[in-house]
């Protein structure tokens, strides 16, 4: 049967993943269109019924609290469907006493919570010194960097903050009720940061994730720390903080760490995520600030918020097929492009969501009918984390406890064998290779199955010459024409 094209819009965070999924879907004849602008926009458009599904990290309640709409989505009815896991990294730009850019920052969850609630406001705060091998940073105020306007990333990050340092967070929120964050009911997280007031003085808001990463990369904001999707940190090789997890270990948000953390993710009845136990996960590998991104789509039964599916059965067919692709084959590449694949239980939840839309029994996924690498205990390419410089430098123990007697000297930048996440990336790729093999072992890898129409392209391999040829193609006729005219004229 011909599938009706389906459109979605929303989160820019899942943009690259959506591109990958759309490609995969296309190779199976599933017509999907996704336009990445922002989570709230997606939810609103979904509510206005101008798109068929939304991609979002922010929840409807947060959007309503921010006064930016969301009500229409309630009217239409929705369910959240997790589609991929990711993590928020802390990028920072701090110079130590010697004027060298610090690249080893280690922070505990509580300290992060207090920093972003503006409870800790200076870099030489003892709480920060304590987690960095006892060496204190300069006595400078902390400038925070975040996203302007409404953003799903802000929602995720402040959910973490709310759990990491509840008191400081609550004070922060109540201080800023009238400053643009909105009046937040209990359990509802802000999607927007204060634009004014004393706290806003120290918050630098930038238009998008890319700007945050570039700014941190250029070190234009001195003594600052900001939150951003980890993929941007990798792209610009910006120093990101090591975050202490429930086991006391310091980790960075590589796929394996995200996956480890999200093993403890719980889903509320509406499938929205409850991450309390992720933040406190005691798996030594877990990275606490991990979360899922959702697809928001209608449903016919099984939830309070379900108010009916699509009028067009063709759309139902398309989107269920698409989500099935997302749940399984779609996860193969995720670790490689900066996400972490869904764990099996959530892949199964995707199928359950489909069932809620169609009213049919859910398909049960297993390692044989689903190519999601997590079904085989792997994460795909690019999943492993680099070693901790403070550990390799012998300043703290692998369990996160400071080594006795090293506090006085403190770490030096060159202490670690790798000076940034990239170095580790390479090892990660190397070790992850075999996993990838097993994941794509059968014909499951859709990429392998798709016709390699563009492989050589027929034209490849002459670099910037293409531009030149094009330019000449445009200019040459004009020149020839001019010459001919001149000759004729004289």
């Amino acid at each position, binding site marked *: 049967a011909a599938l009706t094209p389906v459109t979605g819009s929303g989160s820019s965070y899942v943009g*690259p993943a959506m591109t990958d999924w759309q490609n995969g879907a296309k190779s199976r004849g599933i017509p999907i269109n996704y336009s990445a602008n922002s989570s709230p926009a997606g939810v609103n458009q979904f509510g206005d019924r101008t798109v068929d599904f939304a991609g979002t990290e922010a929840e409807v309640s947060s959007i309503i609290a921010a006064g930016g709409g969301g009500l229409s989505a309630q009217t239409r009815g929705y369910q959240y469907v997790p589609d991929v896991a990711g993590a928020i990294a802390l990028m920072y730009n701090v110079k130590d006493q010697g004027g060298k850019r610090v690249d080893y920052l280690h922070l505990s969850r509580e300290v992060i919570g207090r920093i972003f609630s503006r409870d800790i406001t200076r870099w030489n705060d003892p709480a920060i010194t304590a987690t960095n091998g006892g060496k204190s940073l300069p006595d400078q105020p902390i400038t925070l960097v975040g996203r302007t306007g409404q953003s799903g990333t802000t929602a995720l990050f402040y959910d973490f903050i709310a759990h990491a340092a509840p008191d400081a967070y609550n004070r922060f929120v109540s201080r800023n009720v009238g400053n643009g964050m909105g009046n937040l009911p209990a359990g509802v997280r802000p999607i927007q940061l204060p634009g004014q007031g004393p706290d806003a003085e120290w918050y630098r808001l930038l238009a998008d994730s890319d700007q945050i990463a570039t700014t941190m990369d250029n070190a234009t904001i001195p003594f600052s720390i900001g939150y951003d999707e980890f993929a941007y940190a990798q792209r610009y090789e910006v120093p990101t903080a090591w975050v202490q997890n429930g086991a006391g270990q310091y980790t960075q948000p590589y796929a394996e760490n995200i996956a480890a953390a999200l093993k403890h993710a719980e889903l509320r009845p509406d499938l929205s995520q409850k991450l309390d136990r992720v933040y406190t996960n005691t798996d030594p590998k877990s990275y606490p600030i991990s979360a899922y991104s959702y697809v928001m789509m209608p449903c016919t039964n099984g939830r309070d918020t379900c108010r009916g599916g699509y009028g067009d059965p063709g759309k139902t067919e398309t989107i269920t097929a698409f989500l099935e692709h997302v749940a399984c084959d779609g996860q193969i590449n995720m670790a490689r492009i900066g996400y972490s694949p869904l764990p099996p239980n959530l892949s199964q939840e995707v199928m359950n969501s489909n069932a809620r839309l169609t009213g049919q029994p859910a398909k049960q996924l297993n390692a044989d009918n689903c190519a999601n690498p997590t079904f085989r205990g792997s994460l795909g390419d690019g999943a492993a984390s680099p070693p901790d410089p403070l550990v390799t430098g012998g300043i703290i123990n692998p369990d996160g406890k400071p080594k006795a007697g090293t506090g006085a000297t403190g770490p030096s930048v060159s202490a670690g064998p790798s000076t940034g996440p990239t170095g580790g990336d390479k090892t990660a790729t190397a070790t992850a290779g075999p996993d990838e093999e097993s994941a794509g072992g059968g014909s499951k890898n859709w990429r392998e199955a798709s016709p390699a129409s563009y492989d050589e392209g027929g034209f490849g391999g002459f670099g910037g010459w293409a531009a030149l040829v094009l330019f000449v193609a445009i200019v040459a006729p004009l020149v020839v024409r001019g010459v001919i005219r001149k000759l004729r004229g004289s």
Partner: protein
Amino acid sequence: MTTTLTPPVAPAPRKLVKRRPSETTRQDRFAAFGCAVSATLLTWFVMHLLLDSPGWLADLIVAYLLYLTMLYLVTRDRLGKLAASDRLVSTVVVTGALVLLAPLLSLLLYIVVEGAPYLRLGFFTHDMSTVAPTDPVTETGGLHAVIGTLEQTALTLILVVPLGVLTAVFLNETRSRFRRPVRIMVDAMSGLPSIVAGLFVYAALIIPGIQAGVGLFSYNGLMATLALTMVMLPTVTRTVDVVLRLVPDGLREASLALGASRARTVWSVVLPTARTGVTTAVILGIARVAGETAPLLFTSFGALGMNANPFSDPQESIPLFIYRFIKQPLENVQQRGYVGALVLILLIFGLFAIARVVGRDRSKRKAKKTTVKTQENR
């Protein structure tokens, strides 16, 4: 008083030597060169040896100011105050023109450097629907975006050209009492922010359209066209208006004096005469519209795959293509955006080249006319 006239010089068979007296003498050029050298050295001395220079931009500014001062003083000493201020202003004016050049070149260079190494002819032969984010940049396919841009621009033209030209004719060739309000409205419309035009189409047409299930009023190329029309219409109308004003009244009178009606005069004389100018105006309008991004986000929506039908389903265009990729966290995906930007620039260059060729004949004629005019004025 009778011997006032020189005896005629013997007409020797000589070859006439053209002289083209120039305002600047060799001494002037020497002085300028000397000032430039000494300003450079002084800057280096002051900024780098005495002070800690904050950067090349500051150096440049200081050197420039020093050069101006020296040039002024030297010229004043040689030729007096008036000549000195003249020289000063000439220098400033020339720099002003260069300053105009600098950002453009810098911008172009930036985009070419980022985009050119990855541009392949393959860009024009396939779309993005089979290209994964992890694929190399050279695999980028933009056919769907190019087709979308071409179709949307063509549709925009179909809407804008008749309406714009007719309105310009209305403003120029009739004596209606609505001329003034219309002219004000055209002016006002050119101040309509493009994002508002996009929002208008989205909120007034697309939302009700999709809810009512009217296929034509949903995300598609046509809706983008409508938004672009609102952006382009005033620009084209105003430029055509100016071009029509340039048509000499003598031609209109000649036509009327031959017994032509107003309509015939416009159709057979005014518009053909202004044709090249109108074409140039339209092409420049296209160039501007081809790069509009804001109003497209909510109207044509964008797509990864080919959609050659502008009347249904989302359609990509080059600006959307750029916008989609240029901010993403993967390096190769970002570079796809720059490849798109390069193609857009090339497209605009191409349009400009065409506009220049089309407009050249007109400028030649105009040049002739102006010489005739200056002759008369003497």
